[in-house]
């Protein structure tokens, strides 16, 4: 990471204790935190200080974190990670639909939060895409459309390959059902989660070890992510 300027992260949570702890944790991970304890303050801070990313609590005293995401998305492309304590899929899905890139459930491990933050920052940094992606024995040659597992070539259908490429080029990032369906199948397929589930199952049968998924992680009811 280029250290000339620390990336600024907007942190919006009404719990002052959480703001304080995150300030230290983010600083330790090389970020500068911009705290805000209400939705209004978050929008003000974002407008004035132009953060590189945002961490937004879903339950705020003066409103809804979903609304904050929607308002920020109107003018900013920064990665947004939603903090939810409510463990309910509905709120997560609403936040993701409103423009959030990822969510993390309270209580969370700070290391996990930092990893998600980095994964989502990679998206906006437009790092040059490698033509070969390798991870833990799995090798994707994007130019030649070849997949190898521990050196042996694995035969994938074109759709399976596109799906794996979409996941692997966004490693660590949560990709919602809608995102995957639209990017692999096209605009008209956004609701066909059954189709997606079937292809993910086939893909896993071909590349995952039998004792459980290592590469493609499920976020139940929300989407999938490629292990970071």
């Amino acid at each position: 990471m280029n250290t000339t300027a620390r990336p600024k992260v907007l942190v919006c949570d009404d719990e002052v204790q959480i703001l304080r702890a995150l300030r230290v944790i983010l600083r330790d991970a090389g970020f500068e935190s911009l705290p805000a304890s209400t939705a209004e303050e978050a929008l003000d801070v974002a407008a004035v200080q132009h953060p590189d990313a945002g961490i937004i609590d879903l339950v705020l005293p003066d409103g809804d974190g979903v609304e904050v995401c929607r308002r920020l998305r109107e003018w900013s492309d920064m990665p947004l990670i939603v903090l939810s304590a409510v463990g309910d899929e509905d709120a997560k899905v609403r936040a993701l639909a409103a423009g959030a890139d990822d969510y993390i459930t309270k209580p969370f491990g700070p290391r996990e939060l930092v990893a998600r933050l980095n994964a989502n920052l990679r998206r906006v940094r437009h790092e040059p895409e490698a033509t070969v992606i390798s991870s833990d024995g799995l090798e994707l040659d994007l130019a030649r459309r070849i997949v190898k597992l521990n050196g042996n070539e694995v035969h994938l259908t074109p759709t399976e390959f596109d799906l794996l490429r979409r996941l692997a080029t966004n490693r660590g990032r949560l990709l919602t059902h809608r995102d995957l369906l639209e990017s692999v199948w096209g605009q008209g397929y956004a609701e066909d989660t059954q189709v997606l589930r079937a292809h993910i199952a086939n893909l896993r049968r071909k590349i995952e070890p039998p004792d459980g998924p290592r590469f493609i992680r499920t976020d139940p009811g929300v989407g999938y992510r490629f292990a970071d």
Partner: protein
Amino acid sequence: MSNGSKLRAFGGERPPMWLGIALAALAVAVATAVIYPLKSVAPAVSLSVVYLPAVLLVSAYWGLGLGLATSLASAAAFNFFHIPPVGRFTISDARNWVALAAFVAVAVVVSTVADLARSRTAEAERRREEADLAAGLARELLAGAQTGEVLGSTARRLAEAMTLPSAAIELGAVPPEPRRLAMGLRGPDGAQVATLLVPSHLPAETIERLQDHVVGPLGALVAIALHRDAVQAEAVETAALRRSDDVKTALLRAVSHDLRTPLTAILAAGHALGTDSLSADERTELSSGVVDAAGRLATLVDKLLDLSKLQAGSAVPRPDWVSLEEVLLVARESLGAGASDVKLTVDPGIPDVRADAAQLERAFANLLENARRYSAGQQVAVQIRRSDARVLVRVVDRGPGIDPSERERIFEPFYRGHEAAGEPWTGSGLGLAIAKGFIEANGGTISVESLPGQGTSFVVSLPVHETAPVQAGV
């Protein structure tokens, strides 16, 4: 008639026979007399029709027997008084025989037709009565709350309608006894649901009528009533389950949010405390944050325990003489730094109440905490007063008040009112539910009065026992 029931043609109870005989005799006599003046305008032989109204009348009310007797009496009287030779039961002219025979034939037909109409009407009347009885029994059985409770009045109604000396209905199959007859009441599926018990010395006709016309519909009605009981019980159970499900869902949500938030703070602070770049100030901040969040967790756990005890019905009070003033002083102290915002006024001569002091303290601590949270930083006034046989504790805040639409719900667990402007949303939503639970467990009541924009007062009312000791004033 003496019993007030109307004499009805073609139906109902038959009027007494002596009256019929007297009326028949009178009608025949009148008809005989009427014929005398009529003989001047028509041949005597043709005037036998004058007797027909009498025959019709008697047959309609008293049936075929007396009707035929009246026909014959009319024929005899006509012959004796009006057919020559008059004054004897002989007939000289053969044409008069024909006239008399024709009259008798017509009279017999008339009385038969009248009697048929009478018995048809009587049958219809009986059916109507049976239908009325069935409807009455249905009302009795189905209008009541529990079938078991209305069987007595249903049996009484049946006995009244059928003029039985007594009748009883018992659920299930009951064996007959020497002096009482047991008739099985069966539901539509043929299973015996109850037994109708009547005295065994009833006339055979009544027993037959009961068997043919009452036992069937009554069995169906009892079966329906029992089925309705079962459905009702099920509905009550379902509603209770749903309520308890609602509470559980709310509990899960609250646990999800209210436990996770301080937990997150503790977890994050713990990690942050492990980093190297920490300044001394940050260390102090983070460690006090851990203590603060853990304290909140502990309070919440206490409240959840209080609430689950109340909901499980295991918060049994241990009553003793309790001074409300002392309880309120302790409750106020539990607010910590906020205690100075609460002003306590106690009228002289307040008697002690009989209650569990610890539970009342929990109740009032929650009530004061709630009032302070919504009082927008203004003072909370607490007054203890006596009103007849009750002691009233009034907790008044000058907060934003409670909207009427919310007033019903504020005592529900996990319900949180709209927070005062700018105040962070920190309540657990359990305080008022706990306060209400403990106050009611101790025989008291709690109510709320509120004017939006002006504040809210909660009024706790506790009963005073006659033997209550009175504090001499503090």
